[in-house]
């Protein structure tokens, strides 16, 4: 068998150009309810083009150059238009029952594209390298860690998120959109629901799997090639009036319209770009908070020190459903010894040129565990009464051992900006993983600022953005669950919400395959509004037929 010939004949049979690029469509497509697919596609094209430009020049460009920021704004508004039109496309296809007559796979691919699109946008927000990216990373990590995904997909690893955003996920989205489009063109646009449920069921029975049935028939009878697709669509559309249609022209008009709209939005509204918070700013603006966070790390009482997988063996943030904990099962894949990473290692480096600090550090490390604990407890208690004088944290008199000297030096490392660099060290030259500094900031600094900006989880934070810009409004259902019982009072809220969303997402994807439920749009009746001319014409034809029959019999 010549494989090349086989593939060529199959492509010729199943994907004829007349179907891929038709110049006629059924007259019922005159509703604007058919616009949203092409608008989504146009915004995807512009997203890719603006994204290529952003990726080519790099993050500093979109933060510091006016033109770079404009392109970033264009990319942002294209993403908003993309999800806006994608949502409307999803709604209209739902009410049209777009999966009928052998189109279930088309819906399935479309729904998976929607989910992949959400992932692409989410990693895009994480790749902005601004405050939104910081906050979404530290807030989102808990949900991913709770279900074990965070062990392998680290939201605070900029290099990983950037790679996902600019290559892996867009590639998946483009492939899925291509497959979806191919399915739409090969099968044609779904007909309006039949006037009665009985007729619709008959039509569904006739067309679902018609392709396979016809193939078997032609093979069994030796009637030649498999049924050519133009005749498929000709048969499928029989009885419907066709009208001239220029798909390419419509696509170009949509592309131009989305381009102009996005440019107008980018020029007049720009986009959010709140600068990221640094350890230096935190140390300078809140020295007591900075030292308190560091002490929580040193004593092992801080939230990160007690977090659990994937960072350590703690249990403070481990979630489960009954006896099953995916977080524990995924294990410690991003090990962080909090006391060493945040306090002892940075101080050890500074001590190389500071004998006083070296002595203090030696005193602390050589003290018994009991003595260390006593110093740490006393100093931590004293921090609640601490004041700041000339940039130094001053605590009431007490027996704190070498801790005041150690913490004062750590604060100096923080205020000088040295700690920002020290926490990025990993033994390699290139750094793109911000897990350590972000975890440190996640204890106090980031939540404090996020609360001021209404971005906490209890404030529907995942869908919000800084400033007056729309955020990830498409995450509304995900954030909704966190606001109501039992989720808002559960210590396993993240895993429960993920489970709920997993079930709902699966229902969305496989909706056409659900018996009885997949007939819901028919009974909701919105299709009667979308195709009202069609039903009016059918009624007129029936009435004309009845009149004609009556005249003949009379």
């Amino acid at each position, binding site marked *: 068998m010549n494989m090349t010939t086989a593939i060529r004949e199959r492509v010729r049979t199943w994907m004829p150009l007349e179907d891929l690029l038709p110049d006629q469509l059924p007259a019922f497509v*005159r509703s604007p309810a058919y616009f949203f697919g092409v608008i989504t596609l146009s915004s995807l094209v512009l997203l890719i083009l603006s994204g290529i430009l952003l990726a080519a020049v790099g993050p500093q460009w979109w933060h510091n150059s006016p033109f770079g920021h404009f392109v970033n704004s264009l990319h942002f508004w294209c993403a908003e238009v993309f999800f806006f039109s994608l949502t409307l496309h999803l709604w209209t296809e739902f009410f049209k029952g777009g999966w009928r007559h052998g189109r279930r796979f088309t819906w399935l691919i479309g729904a998976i594209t929607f989910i992949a699109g959400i992932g692409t946008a989410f990693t895009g927000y994480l790749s902005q390298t601004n405050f939104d990216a910081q906050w979404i990373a530290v807030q989102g990590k808990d949900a991913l860690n709770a279900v074990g995904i965070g062990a392998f997909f680290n939201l605070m690893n900029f290099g990983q998120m950037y790679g996902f955003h600019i290559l892996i996920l867009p590639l998946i989205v483009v492939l899925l959109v291509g497959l979806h489009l191919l399915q739409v063109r090969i099968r044609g646009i779904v007909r309006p629901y039949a*006037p009665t449920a009985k007729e619709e069921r008959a039509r569904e029975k006739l067309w679902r799997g018609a392709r396979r049935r016809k193939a078997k028939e032609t093979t069994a009878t030796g009637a030649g090639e498999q049924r050519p697709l133009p005749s498929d669509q000709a048969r499928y559309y029989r009885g*419907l009036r066709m009208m001239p249609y220029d798909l390419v022209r419509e696509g170009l008009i949509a592309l131009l319209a989305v381009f102009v709209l996005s440019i107008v939005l980018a020029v007049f509204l720009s986009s959010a770009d709140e600068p990221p918070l640094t350890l230096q700013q935190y140390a300078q603006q809140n020295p007591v908070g900075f030292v308190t966070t560091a002490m929580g790390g040193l004593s092992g009482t801080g939230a990160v020190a007690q977090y659990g997988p994937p960072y350590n063996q703690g249990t403070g943030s481990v979630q489960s459903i009954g006896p099953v904990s995916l977080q524990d099962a995924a294990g410690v894949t991003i090990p962080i010894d909090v006391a060493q990473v945040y306090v002892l290692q940075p101080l050890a480096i500074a001590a190389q040129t500071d004998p006083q600090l070296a002595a203090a550090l030696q005193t602390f490390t050589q003290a018994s565990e009991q003595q260390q604990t006593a110093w740490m407890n006393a100093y931590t208690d004293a921090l609640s009464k601490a004041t700041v004088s000339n940039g130094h944290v001053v605590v009431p008199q007490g027996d704190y051992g070498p801790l005041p000297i150690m913490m004062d030096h750590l604060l100096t490392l923080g205020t000088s900006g040295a700690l920002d660099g020290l926490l990025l060290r990993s033994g390699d030259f290139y750094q793109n993983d911000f897990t350590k500094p972000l975890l440190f900031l996640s204890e106090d600094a980031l939540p404090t600022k996020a609360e001021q900006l209404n971005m906490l989880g209890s404030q529907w934070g995942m869908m919000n953005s800084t400033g*007056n810009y729309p*955020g990830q409004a498409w995450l509304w259902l995900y954030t909704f669950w966190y*606001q109501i019982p039992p989720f808002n009072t559960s210590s396993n809220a993240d895993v429960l919400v993920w489970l709920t969303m997993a079930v709902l997402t699966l229902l969305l994807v496989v909706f056409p395959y659900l018996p009885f439920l997949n007939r819901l749009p028919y009974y909701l009746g919105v299709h009667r509004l979308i195709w009202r*001319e069609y039903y009016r014409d059918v009624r007129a034809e029936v009435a004309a037929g009845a009149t004609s029959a009556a005249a003949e019999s009379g």
Partner: protein
Amino acid sequence: MGGPAQYLHVGFILISLANLIVIALLIVIFILAVTLRRPEKHRISTIETVAEAVEKLSADTAGTEVQP
């Protein structure tokens, strides 16, 4: 747009004005999309007349079709 965000707080719902506008626009445009039609000079039927359908049916003897 870069200033302090405006929020609407109703019960347990806390939504930014920007997100609210996006969601409201979604609903409005959906309603418009299912109710409006493209402008056209002459209204044409969405289905073939019975005579046309019969003529076409006779020209194509292959298969069966459920009439709309």
